[in-house]
């Protein structure tokens, strides 16, 4: 067991960790759901039940059947295949958006923490507040209105709003670490703040980042679905869950399967990621596991 006072686990591969993973119900369910969708996305790279670029208008809007497990859409395409390929879009957009948020936010957070209280810190944090103050969906709409709708622009729009999230969490995590004696020890060893940030702070905030990353990832998937739903995400023929919902919207009254399955896909993926995030948080933070009176 990690010492509860350090609150941080070593990176050594510890098979007890895996036992904890499966002891925690939410983590296990989350992991399974996430793996199902990640797996579907991966499989779709090489194989899908049907070719989704082929339209078959004669076979449109068929309810689930043996041939099409989840039915067909308004162009006669196989919905299962669409969901599988759509998973790819969702996951890709969310990953890159989280990547942008981390790539920019983590260094900013580390930097702000290393110069706590300075003008730089103030500027970074105020800028972050400002990004938070902007209604994110509107900005995403403006970005796509400016540069045209596309998966790339959706990624950028989502990514920008991830930056302050990661900057903030990194900064607050780093600030507590900067109080710790081992940082002082590193300074006694003559290390500069940049080096300390990379060598000592960063590895110790990774847990925080993983947890937050999972959550932002799921938010990214929701955001992508929302943007695609209003037509600002990935453009056809690239399938996306949000657009599948938008396309099916007018048909929900007579072909509910068209709306049900993509909606379930979003719901279950996001649910899986959130459960995983929660489970990881519990796993990483022993404080939450210790119950007191």
């Amino acid at each position, binding site marked *: 067991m*990690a*010492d509860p*006072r*350090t609150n*941080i*686990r*070593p*990176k*050594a591969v510890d098979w007890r960790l895996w036992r904890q993973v499966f002891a925690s119900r939410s983590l296990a369910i989350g992991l399974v759901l996430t793996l199902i969708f990640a797996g579907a996305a991966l499989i779709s790279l090489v194989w899908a039940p049907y070719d989704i670029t082929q339209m078959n208008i004669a076979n449109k809007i068929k309810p689930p059947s043996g041939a099409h497990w989840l039915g067909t859409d308004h162009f006669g395409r196989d919905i299962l295949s669409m969901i599988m390929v759509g998973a790819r879009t969702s996951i890709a957009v969310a990953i890159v958006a989280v990547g942008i948020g981390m790539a920019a936010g983590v260094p900013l957070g580390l930097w702000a923490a290393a110069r706590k*209280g300075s003008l730089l810190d103030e500027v970074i944090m105020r800028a972050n507040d400002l990004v938070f103050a902007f209604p994110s969906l509107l900005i995403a709409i403006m970005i796509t209105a400016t540069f045209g709708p596309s998966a790339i622009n959706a990624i950028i729009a989502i990514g920008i709003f991830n930056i302050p999230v990661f900057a903030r969490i990194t900064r607050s995590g780093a600030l507590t670490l900067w109080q*710790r*004696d*081992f940082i*002082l*020890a*590193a*300074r*006694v*060893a*003559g*290390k500069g703040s940049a080096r300390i940030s990379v*060598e*000592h702070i960063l*590895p*110790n905030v990774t847990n925080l980042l993983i947890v937050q990353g999972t959550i932002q990832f799921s938010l990214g998937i929701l955001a992508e679905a929302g943007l695609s739903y209003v037509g600002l995400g990935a453009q056809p023929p690239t399938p996306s869950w949000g657009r599948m919902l938008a396309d099916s919207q007018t048909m929900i009254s007579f072909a509910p399967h068209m709306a049900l399955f993509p909606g379930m896909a979003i719901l279950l993926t996001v649910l899986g990621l959130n459960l995983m995030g929660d489970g990881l948080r519990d796993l990483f933070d022993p404080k939450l596991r*210790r*119950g*007191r*009176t």
Partner: protein
Amino acid sequence: MNLLRIAGLNLDIHGTPILRDVSLSVDPGQIVGVIGESGSGKSMTAFAVMQLLPNGSAATGRVTLSGHEMLELPERALCKLRGNEVGMVFQEPMTALNPIRSIGQQVAETILIHEDVPKSEAMARAREALNRVELPEDRFPLTRYPHELSGGQRQRVVIAMAIALRPKLLIADEPTTALDVTTQAQILALLTRLVREDGMGMLMITHDLAVVSGMADEIVIMQNGRVVESGPAATLFETMQHPYSKALLAASGHVPDRVDRDGGAPLLEVRGVVRDYRLPRKTLFGAPVVIHAVKGVSFTLERGESLGLVGESGCGKSTLTRAILGLEEVQEGSIRLDGEPVFTGHTANRAVRRRMQVVFQDPYGSFNPRHRVSRLVTEPFHLLDTPPTGAEREAAIDEALISVGLTPADKEKYIHEFSGGQRQRIAIARALIIKPDLIILDEAVSALDVQVRAQILDLLADLSARFGLTYLFISHDLSVVRSITDRVLVMKSGEIVEEGPTERVFDAPRHAYTQELIAAAPKLPEGVA
């Protein structure tokens, strides 16, 4: 009849045995001291009495409090007893109070919970309770909030809450561990007075033998969840049988063997050092607040010497340490090591810095938990222009680990695999690895159990003898300073108020503050160690 009687108490938490067959009793007006190392089950025993055990606890045996079987009472009845029949004071005064409610409200709550009285009356009685714990009305109105009080003052508020209804039993779980010696002495005196005045029984938990020896009537020694020894305080030290008790006693008064040295050449010269902190403006247009942490400190440390620096919390000890280590620039004065300034211009002097190392107080916080020991101890190599590599590096690690009593195999481990004492050894190994001239020990043994502390003190004495090290030993624990230093500096509010050979300062303190400090320090009875 006993006020409190614990008989054959067993406690498991989530199936892990915590307490085994614990028995003790407290009579009205009696103070029972419970001592034992960290994790021995002292606090759990107290919580078992209060029936405030963690989730997943299963207790068996008997706990009888003025006739009530605590283990059998329903929760409602327990609530009636808590605060009324039995009060409790906790270790950490900084967090024991609700930060958003005034102290008056919090003390009055004890009364309001148990008695159906109007709020105004409860407030009046809260006032009275605060007066009794020496928080007079003029300086401490009921409307104060906890953050406006010092640690010692907060602890008094907690005590006021516990005694507001004049309970029959008071449980104090390490009530002074987090406090300064002088404050500690005041709080202990206060508790003793209250117990005597009200004829309360008190269960006093501490890890410091000296604390209980001065005030307890009865002493209970615990180890690994068991009571290993108990008896009247007056005679226990002579009659004790159990090897653990003996070892504990021996360690408490332990003085490491030290080789006497003749005065050497000056190594560290500190001249008129001033360090101010400028706090961010509190108000929009007001002048910035300046804290004078160190106000013109001068002293000389000779090669091979062990110099002690004592003083209460916040007097500037750590600030001075950081200045010496070249981590922060000072506003005035100079710090030189062997004639070389620590700072040239505004940059710290690497050549000087590599000759000094430090060991910190917290054995848990001074290591990056993600690095292996080998990487941890070699961190100071960063100061060298050509750090050793390969086999040479491995040899240096092995040597450092061996010299602090660890084995070379330990270098592959992570820090969480070590106990507190072992960690402190690793911290010393880290300090030794670049063979510095000066090692600063900032409260290096304060967080350790007495037995471990004795070992580390022995190690330090041994290393100093072997490598001719020079120590600057910072501590608030006077007995430790006394046992390991040649000379001592007494610091108060950023100034050195007294300086002299250790023996002389302790035996014949000249400055009033030093006298106060020494008088406040709890002592074991004469001749037991």
